[in-house]
């Protein structure tokens, strides 16, 4: 998996910094939505066949908005993020269709050099595993500063000052001293803060956080999520939060997109989706998790396993596990039905799901 660090090292080969930015040739429309993903399709060519990792996924993100992408492992949520960032390993992955528009410009049409500038400057990403995303042989300050120097042409001294400023912004105590520390000298939570600082270094408008707190302890998770949502509010960032944790998204997201087997199966406002899910998978997920504020009875189980993406079941991919499934679900793939109140659900029988 690529990351912001390798991006900056790659830019060593880029043209001298005195040249005008590759972004100046693009006409960003500030009235267009911040980020729009439309009918995105990604395939993986594997030995076992073609895996359809992302199928016709569409969503939009506005300024200051948090979109939670929810799903289990292998549902295509991380691949979606990597396709937006342009950091998929191609091959085996291939974006076979759709658009990713940032302020009206389709990023998928741009050349690699321009995309590199979009990353970090406009869209940045935070990864789950901060220890493997940071280079162990350089100090944290050097890594933060390098990113800044390469993209803005600042001097080493300026870059260092900027690194300290960034570390202070993400709440690292004694930032002036810690800037000389190596990644292993930081705790897990502090390292994730460094990753956030790195993502924000060039003031992007969109942050994609891929399971940013999954490896952290619960109290540290709370610290990092608080920091992330504070910064987001302050800077009016668009935030895409990718997670499998239904609790984390309930706390911070405005909108939710639930993914299953490469499909966006339900999209709705956060309050609606928890109150009254309109897709059997969302409903079953909510019923299958134990809650800390209730002593539960036996958990409702989703029978079976998620399908292999190489050989998904015909019709609706969820039908073998679905409690609402009928014969039609085995043959007809459900479209993303429009529901009242700007909701969407990819279920033929969403009305029954809502009523139940």
């Amino acid at each position: 998996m690529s990351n912001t660090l390798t991006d900056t090292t790659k830019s060593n080969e880029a043209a001298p910094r005195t040249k005008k930015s590759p972004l100046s040739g693009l006409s960003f429309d500030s009235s267009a939505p911040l980020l729009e993903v439309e009918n995105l399709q990604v395939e993986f060519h594997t030995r076992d066949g073609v895996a359809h990792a992302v199928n016709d996924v569409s969503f939009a993100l506005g300024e200051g908005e948090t979109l939670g992408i929810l799903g289990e492992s292998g549902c295509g949520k991380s691949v979606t993020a990597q396709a937006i960032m342009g950091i998929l390993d191609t091959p085996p992955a291939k974006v076979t269709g759709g658009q990713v528009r940032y302020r009206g410009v389709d990023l998928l049409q741009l050349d690699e050099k321009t995309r590199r500038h979009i990353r970090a400057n406009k869209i940045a990403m935070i990864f789950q595993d901060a220890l493997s995303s940071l280079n162990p042989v350089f100090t944290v300050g050097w890594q933060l500063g390098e990113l800044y120097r390469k993209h803005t042409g600042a001097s080493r001294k300026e870059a260092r000052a900027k690194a300290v400023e960034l570390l202070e912004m993400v709440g690292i105590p004694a930032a002036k001293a810690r800037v000389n520390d190596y990644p292993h000298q930081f705790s897990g939570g502090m390292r994730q803060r460094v990753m956030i600082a790195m993502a924000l270094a060039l003031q992007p408008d969109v942050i994609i956080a891929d399971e940013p707190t999954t490896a952290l302890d619960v109290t540290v998770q709370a610290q990092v999520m608080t920091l992330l949502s504070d910064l987001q509010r302050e800077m009016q960032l668009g935030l895409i939060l990718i997670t499998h944790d239904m609790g984390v998204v309930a706390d911070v997201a405005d909108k939710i997109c639930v993914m299953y087997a490469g499909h966006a199966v339900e999209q709705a406002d956060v309050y609606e989706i928890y109150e009254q899910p309109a897709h059997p998978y969302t409903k079953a997920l909510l019923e299958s998790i134990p809650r800390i504020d209730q002593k539960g009875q036996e958990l409702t189980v989703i029978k079976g396993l998620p399908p292999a993406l190489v050989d998904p079941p015909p019709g609706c991919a969820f039908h073998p596990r679905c409690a609402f499934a009928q014969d039609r679900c085995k043959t007809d793939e459900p479209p993303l039905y429009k529901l009242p109140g700007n909701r969407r659900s990819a279920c033929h029988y969403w009305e029954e799901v809502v009523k139940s």
Partner: protein
Amino acid sequence: MSIDVTESEQLSQGSNDDAVLEVRDVKKYFPLTQGIVFKRTIGHVKAVDGVSFELKKGETLGVVGESGCGKSTLGRLLMGLERPTDGSIKLLGEEMAGLSPRAMRRMRRNIQIVLQDPYSSLDPRMTVGDIVGEPFEIHTEVLGRKDRREAVQDLLDVVGLNPDHINRYPHQFSGGQRQRIGIARALALRPKILVCDEPVSALDVSVQAQVVNLFERLQDEFGLSYVFIAHDLSVVRHISDRVMVMYLGKAVEVGNESEIYDHPTHPYTQALLSAVPVPDPRLRGNRDQIVLEGDVPSPADPPSGCRFRTRCWKAQDVCATDLPLLVTRDGSAHPSACHFAEERDVVHAVENPVEIHGVGGPSTNGSHPSTNGSHPS
């Protein structure tokens, strides 16, 4: 506030005959050494530092805490995989320390473990039949060679796997199915107690519920007692009868499921619970928020007195000098190791939610391995 009874006295009051496991003041210190040829001990990591509890037949004790709090070491001590530095562990009334290796092996039949990672805890070159049947190879007196295959198939059936898959290899199974193989192996010798060390943490949410339900069914079927070690507080609430909260090698609060979750009195329990996100957006901003600053101090050099005092918003001078005992205090029905134990609901919506910030711990330098967010194995 006067406390007349000591910690172990109070705990022993409740002791009776149906306890299958009695743990008294057990300690495990790992030496820190320096030098290559002449190793000098320069200190100790106090991984478990005086933990007492008892487990009754058919009961589930949940052990929660963050990484580095000693919960996994406690599990290893119970299994006899580590020798305690001090204290006593009685399994079915028999003291584990001082048993001969042979007697120890016999005792161990009664207590088995289910490990976290179903990918690394199963040998990829052994078939499922070999894995589940391995306990019979070690404890040869349990079952004759001829009956083993059938016993293994029965076990697979019990945990919800197809008995015909006995000759398959672990890689042919999904994560949830592998965890079932691990459970079948643990059940092979018909133990009385199962130590479950993060058994569902590596599983996807939709599969997690299947395994949690399996644990509950097996408990009813075989009358098992569980020590359920996990960091996921929601799962622990669901499965446990009683819960023990650990911080830096010590139990800070023990109570039944409702006492801990609905009426927590120790500040650390409250902080831990308030940090757990609830999957209900309507609770947003309607719960008390306790944000702890800093990191857990190093277990090699824990703070004096109460170990939580460096991050506690209630800490007074007395906390630095007097170690608070885990005893029942005024105004609460369950033991709590805090001088200022006071009930606070942090899990449900409250009328006027407050935000509390813990003081910054001294150890923001998390260079200690146990504080870097990885799970000690």
